[in-house]
């Protein structure tokens, strides 16, 4: 029977999963264009970049520099945008007006041209109320709580104007403060013969304020420049109203965000900005497609998701594929600040991370935001 068992082992262990390698030659180049004109004071920005290979998920998008971006309105006005940082093109004087339609044209240095379909700026209703509720899914003291399933469910009630036809687009950005201990950073040194655990020596980065002295020790020479970081999070799925659930002129208890309560997000407080935007039917459909693509479950028998395109098309022959949009939206914003004390139990102290604070999260900056 041993032999039979062995064979069964083999059968069950033989199947294997490994990353599928896409050869660089198999990529198709593509452009990503994103811009929004609002009823708020400008300047407004149009960002142009190139797509990144799917396996290069830590890489940063390559900006498209030197493009000519022009914004037009339906009154015959136009304005050329200025590239103030690589790939970011800003307006100067134009101001979004209710009822006006806007579109952009983009000409890249390689001669390709693109154009967006006109989008009309329509008003948006007011956010009437933002509510939050703490959900305790796990005992906060049985683990270190660097990540947690506990947190705040944030919902809102809002007015929907008839001109919106039941369509609302929400987005949010949340900011929190973290603290790390880069001066405790160590590095492994080679030893012969190798020992277990490997030998390590202190290796503080200079931004920690500590440097090595001539005697092999370390001295503090200044304050830490990479211990305090502010991390920004964004919604990872498009948030859209369901026209079927838009009751008359309002939406109520619309789920917006889940703010995770852990020792980092509530080291200090959590600052949440919620934007409520108006949008056209075509932009609504676009975000819906994006949402569908994002929530497409992973399984062996999945279908390829619908292709997302947006409202920008190439207008010259041979131009690379483009994905993106230029929208016109009225914005209504609401700020919600959740404090450490709002968590119904005492949050444990932040974990000791011996690293530069910017490396912990994707959007992590040592610059203190103006609203902090």
């Amino acid at each position, binding site marked *: 029977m041993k032999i039979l068992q062995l064979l069964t082992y083999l059968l069950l262990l033989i199947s294997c999963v490994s990353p599928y390698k896409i050869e660089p030659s198999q990529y198709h180049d593509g452009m990503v264009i994103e811009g929004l004109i609002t009823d708020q004071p400008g300047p407004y920005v149009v960002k142009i970049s190139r797509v990144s290979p*799917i396996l290069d998920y830590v890489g940063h998008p390559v900006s498209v520099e030197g493009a000519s971006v022009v914004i037009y309105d339906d009154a015959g006005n136009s304005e050329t945008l200025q590239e103030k940082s690589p790939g970011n093109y800003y307006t100067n004087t134009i101001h979004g007006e209710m009822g006006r339609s806007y579109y952009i044209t983009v000409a890249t240095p390689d001669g390709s041209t693109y154009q967006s379909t006109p989008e009309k700026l329509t008003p948006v209703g007011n956010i009437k109320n933002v509510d939050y509720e703490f959900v305790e899914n796990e005992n906060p003291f049985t683990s270190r709580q660097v990540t947690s399933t506990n947190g705040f469910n944030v919902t809102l009630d809002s007015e929907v104007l008839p001109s919106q036809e039941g369509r609302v687009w929400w987005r949010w950005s949340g900011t929190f403060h973290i603290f790390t201990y880069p001066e405790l950073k160590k590095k492994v040194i080679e030893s012969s013969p190798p020992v277990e655990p490997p030998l390590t020596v202190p290796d503080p980065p200079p931004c920690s304020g500590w440097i090595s002295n001539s005697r092999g020790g370390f001295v503090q020479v200044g304050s830490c420049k990479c211990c305090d970081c502010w991390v920004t999070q964004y919604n990872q799925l498009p948030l859209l109203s369901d026209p079927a659930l838009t009751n008359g002129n309002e939406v109520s208890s619309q789920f917006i965000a889940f703010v995770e309560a852990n020792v980092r997000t509530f080291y200090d407080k959590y600052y949440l900005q919620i934007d409520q935007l108006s949008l056209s039917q075509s932009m609504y459909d676009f975000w819906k497609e994006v949402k569908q693509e994002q929530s497409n479950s992973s399984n062996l028998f*999945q279908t390829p998701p619908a292709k997302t395109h947006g409202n920008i098309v190439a207008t010259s022959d041979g131009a690379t594929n483009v994905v993106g949009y230029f929208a016109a939206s009225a914005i209504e914003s609401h700020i919600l600040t959740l404090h450490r004390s709002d968590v119904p139990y005492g949050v444990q102290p932040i974990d000791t991370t011996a690293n530069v604070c910017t490396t912990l999260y994707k959007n992590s900056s040592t610059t203190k935001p103006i609203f902090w």
Partner: protein
Amino acid sequence: MKIFTAGFLLTIAFSAHSQSILDRKVEASATGKPLSAYLMEIEGDSECKVFFIDQWLESFQIEEGYVGMTLGETLRKIFEGTDIYFTIFYDYAIVIVKDPNQTLAKTRFLQSIRGEKKKVETKSIGAKGKIKPGTIVQLTGTVKDGKTLDPLANATVYVEGTTRVATTSPGGTFSLAVPAGEQFVVFRFANYEEKIVSVGIYESGELNADLMETPKVLDEVVVTGRQSSVVNGNVGQIDLKLAQLKKLPAFLGEVDIIKQIQVMPGVTSVGEMSSGFNVRGGGVDQNLVLYDGVQIFNNSHVFGFFSAFNSEAVRNASFFKGGIPAEYGGRVSSVLNISSKEGDYKKWFASGGIGPISSNIALNGPINKDKTSIFASFRSSYSDWMVKTIQYSNVDKSSVAFYDASLKVAHKFGENDKLTLTGYASRDKFGLPSDTTFWWQTRIASLHYDHRFSERAFSTITLGYGEYSYEVKDNGTSTGYDLKYALSYPTFKVDYNYHAGKHRFNTGISSIWYGITPGNIVPTSPVSNVKPQSIARQQSLEVAAFLSDEFEITENLRIDLGARISSFTAMGPGKVYSYQSGQPISSSTMVDSISYASGKPIKTYAGFEPRASAVYKITPFSSIKLGYNRIYQFIHLISNSVSISPIDIWQSSNYYFKPQIGDQYSVGYFKSLKSNQFDFSIEGFYKHLNNILDFKDGSNIVLNPTLEDALLRGVGKAYGVEFSVNKNTGRLQGSFNYTYARSFRQVQSPFPGESINSGNWYPSNYDQPNVVNFTWRYALSRRFSFTGNFTYRTGRPITLPYSYGYLSNMPIVNFSDRNEFRVPDYHRLDLALVIEGNHRRKKLVDGSWIISFYNVYARKNVYSVFYKTNQYGLPIPYQLSIIGTVLPSVSYRFRI
């Protein structure tokens, strides 16, 4: 000794007399004289010399019939079929020679059959004393299956050492002119044991033969075309000659019909986990698989690892990939017609196999001798308990189990009537560690009544019932559900065959009543988030009538003309939704619905399906074949995976889904060399498919009551060339085939963005342009053989996410065009050593061992590519290799 003089004479110079001696007429006075005496007479009254040995001519005498014939003719007639012949030297000497080659050949033949331990029966027809040497006598008889006693048509009967051959009629009878004397008569029929009878034929008489099916283990499954000869068979009908090639390496020791079909030219599969197969660029749902006349919808166990047919229970299987006869319809690409085994009418037998995954046993024998027989087989896995013993990851929490069973009871009411009952059941259970369990099962039963009106006419009535269903159950608290699907299809068919001169007619009608319960989901726990949902049952009726005529116009030209008229009606109860015109079909454009009462026709389709094929023999050893067929298909597999998976949805045609129409043109050249030692063929085809369905990007097909919003209609085309060479005899036997074929789809929609790949042609899921299959068997000794097979296929197309960008801080992924990428090419080598038991006939158990190695060089062939969303919200493509290592197995098969 005059014979020695003959040798001496060779050196004498040629002299001038003409060969007048042989022109001399036999006088009436010679009648009744012994040949030797007569020859001496001739020598006396002419200048001629006749050299011979007296004993040789002892039994020959001059018959009355020879009077008036020339001496030459007379001698030729007299010596025909004997080992004696004569030559003439220098015009005055007749030398009678005993052909040493003839004698040697006979001796050698005898030695060879003794060496092979073949049984030679001895018989005598007529008394030896009555011998009239040189006469030709008529041998007649019937060839029957020794077990079922059914007559065998197209069996070969020949006299060893001569060119005298006969083929049996559909009634198994033959008539053969044989030179009187001691002869070896050989009876042959594909996949049956050869029978050799040493007959002393001294007058016309009867010689019957009962042939036994080849009993060697593993030689059970034979895939043949309708006719056994490469040169004679119709185009697109494969004769695999598995009789020689069956001892192939088997996947985990399981002999598998479907896997054997997958290595034939023009047939591909997308990987290990696919019991379905693709024939000439067609989908897996386009193959009609019949088990004793009833369709089978899912022919796999364990998600396609094994086929659902126990090879022990299969008698034979015919496969048609082109020139499909009018008798078959309903699937546009191919027909696989499997007949199960019938029990022995005389004795009881048992056979079985023990493999690492499953074991099987079969019993058969007479319930009522010569009248009623039974065949029962059962196969079951025992992998489940082994899975439980594995303490690795959470493998022990998963479960795999399957069984299949087959039963056949046949009863003969006299010579001309037979009633057969077939039952077949197959069931699978597959449990994942994540609380999800799949079950799927097939059950069929059929009743056949065969009646023979005369030698020329017979008829079969088939009444069948089939059912395919599956269930998926999730026991999670918040995700718990129970999903059920069922499809039932009572079937009726009657056909009538009539053989008149050069025509063979086949006509009949058939019908299938489909009842589909497309889905029913209920939550299994009170806190489950799953909403209960049920989709209404659908019913439909398919009816067809067919007529075909196989017409032997000349000895070298045969045509087979046929037609089939099929109709399909989707019946109520049902609801048809209507959508805004000029808008894409979606839930948001739905405007109204019409309800149909039970039994009311919702939509009817009808089709005329012409079928034609022709075989033209250029020489007895080469032929050109042509074929055309049109077939309508009314039931579609709605699948977003590439192979048949147990949770696929079969959807019948309805208001929105038109029947698929397949047209295929094929042409081929066939040649056999060195008396069938080698055969060679090249076949080309072009196939056009209409109304095929492909899913829209991002659509949902499971439990979708309005499937029309998830699917788009398109066209398909496939074309290719298949090249194959077989070596059929000798120690080394094998086959090699290479196929170049393409398969494309085109789906255009009037609405922007809906067309797949902007409405351009794109490769289908199973477009695998280059396919090579090479199988061989080398007999190391009489008991040991070394077999192998090598397969190469271009990787199949896939759709991939390949790039992304950020919009509003969210990753937006670009997917490639449909089927723009391919998985790496597939190739695999399998080897096996077959050790057969001794070939003695009288033994208790006839057993054999098969030691096989699957995927010898452990290639990680990619089955599929899927994507998992990573922490950055990006779908990352992963490739799944079902078998990433070499798989050894040992199995044992026996027969008692």
